[in-house]
């Protein structure tokens, strides 16, 4: 079996895709955005409750798509919950580097450990967009999704 495949579809990823964390609608969302990849039909909706300082007080997502897109969304909600706007920004930047196989600068070690499960994607450039969909949707929710 191809090792890069095992790395891409490792147990943590499959677990996130089968049992996504923070899954569902957030009625009280202050921000919301829908992400859609027209190439493959993957969909992700990100719901956020941002407090007065822009901290992610609560986060949920709903979606439909491939294992990578759904696992990435689930992983993202784990990482972003409770984070300030600046911390979230840093995490997103770090994630975008990791999935492209680049070394992120200034990423907290525990976050890097969490994201490492996605580093296998760098061997699959055609699939990077699946993993970044949720993050771009999050950013879109913050910037343009005020409810």
């Amino acid at each position, binding site marked *: *079996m*191809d090792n*890069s*495949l*095992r790395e*891409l*579809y490792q147990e943590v990823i*499959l677990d996130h895709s089968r049992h996504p964390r923070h899954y569902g609608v957030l009625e009280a969302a202050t921000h919301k955005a829908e992400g859609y990849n027209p*190439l*493959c*039909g*993957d*969909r992700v909706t990100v719901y956020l409750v941002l407090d007065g300082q822009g901290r992610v007080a609560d986060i949920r997502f709903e979606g*439909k*798509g*491939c*294992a*990578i897109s759904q696992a990435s969304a689930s992983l993202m909600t784990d990482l972003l919950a409770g984070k300030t706007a600046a911390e979230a920004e840093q995490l997103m930047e770090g994630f975008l580097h990791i999935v492209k196989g680049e070394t992120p600068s200034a990423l907290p070690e525990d976050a890097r450990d969490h994201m490492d499960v996605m580093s296998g994607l760098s061997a*699959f450039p*055609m*699939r990077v967009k*699946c993993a970044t969909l949720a993050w771009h949707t999050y950013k879109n929710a913050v910037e343009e999704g005020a409810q």
Partner: protein
Amino acid sequence: MSAAAKIIPAFDAQAARRDFAILAKPVYGKPLAYLDSGASAQKPAIVLETMKAFAETEYANVHRGVHYLSGAATDRYEAARRTVQKFLGAAAEDEIVFTKGGTEAINLVAYSYLMPLIQLGDEIVLSVMEHHSNIVPWHFLRERQGAVLRWVDVQEDGSLDIAALDAAITPKTKLVAITHMSNVLGTLTPLAEIVKRAHAKGVPVLADGAQGAVHEIVDVQALDIDFYAITGHKLYGPTGIGALFAKRAHLKTMRPFNGGGEMIREVTRERITYADPPARFEAGTPPIIESVGLAVALDYLSGFDRAAVKAHEHDLLSYAREGVRQLNWVRVIGDAPGKGAILSFEAEGMHAHDLATILDREGVAVRAGHHCAQVLMERFGVTSTSRASFALYNTRADVDAMLSGLHKAREILV
């Protein structure tokens, strides 16, 4: 089958494979099983070599210069038009318009033929299994001129509901636009019957032949069809070229689409007059080298016994269908009787993109996604499928590679 079952002539796929160098090139160290010819077919050496030789010895712009090379290139370009004419069974060469592909051919009909005829509330009949290229141009007419799209459903097995189609044609219908062969389901539509029924009500018919022309012998005169669109790259030819067959009577009434060189007779400050069809619809420098490539590709395909090729592709289809049928975790979408050599399916617990990624690492190229047929995806309640499409150069070994890849994918993903 009765005792009178047809004798199927033999087709030597192994010999044909030698014409396609790319098929011998491993992918990720595995033999390539290219099952995505429905998206684009590979090109035989004769096509690539002829294009190169033409560019090296006879190339210049067409219909322009008086010099030797311009004359030579024009001869080849017009000879290519006659090859397309023959391939489609058209009555005359001036019924063939070169386009940049099937999409442009359909858009040409939308802009040049139908747009001037459409009044608010006029209807266009199309099936739910159309490719976006045979949907979006008609949506333009809906958006911009208030045309109404009348959708004809398919049955559960993917076959066209001909009674529903008949019923959808009303006195307001201005065109029936329908695929010859679905790029997702493989369904072949009964074009002759459709044309008969539409013409009985005075309605012209356009067929999207992007897939159909590859697998079926097309005779536009026997079909009595009004418009038939093809694309070169699915026909083992180059990208960047396709063609529209249109009846001469339609071409005469159609207004130009693109304006520019070559499509005019005379241009003054006050007015213009147009060249006769087909030049009227071929503004600018056309895909000259590609036209030569397309002609060679059509000759290449026609050089085989087409019935034998079809039988070979059907053998692959039935072999693959039987293979996936034994997996009770795979659902085939599209099982119309006599369908063409395309197999779409969903595998339980696996998204099509994850499956395609795993198959890819096994050297198996399939298409995953909505196949530019979102209306059809919605009809079958799916967002994406995996699709294997078969060409003359495929073999049962390609199918075996896909089936074994399916097992591996299940091992990893489920």
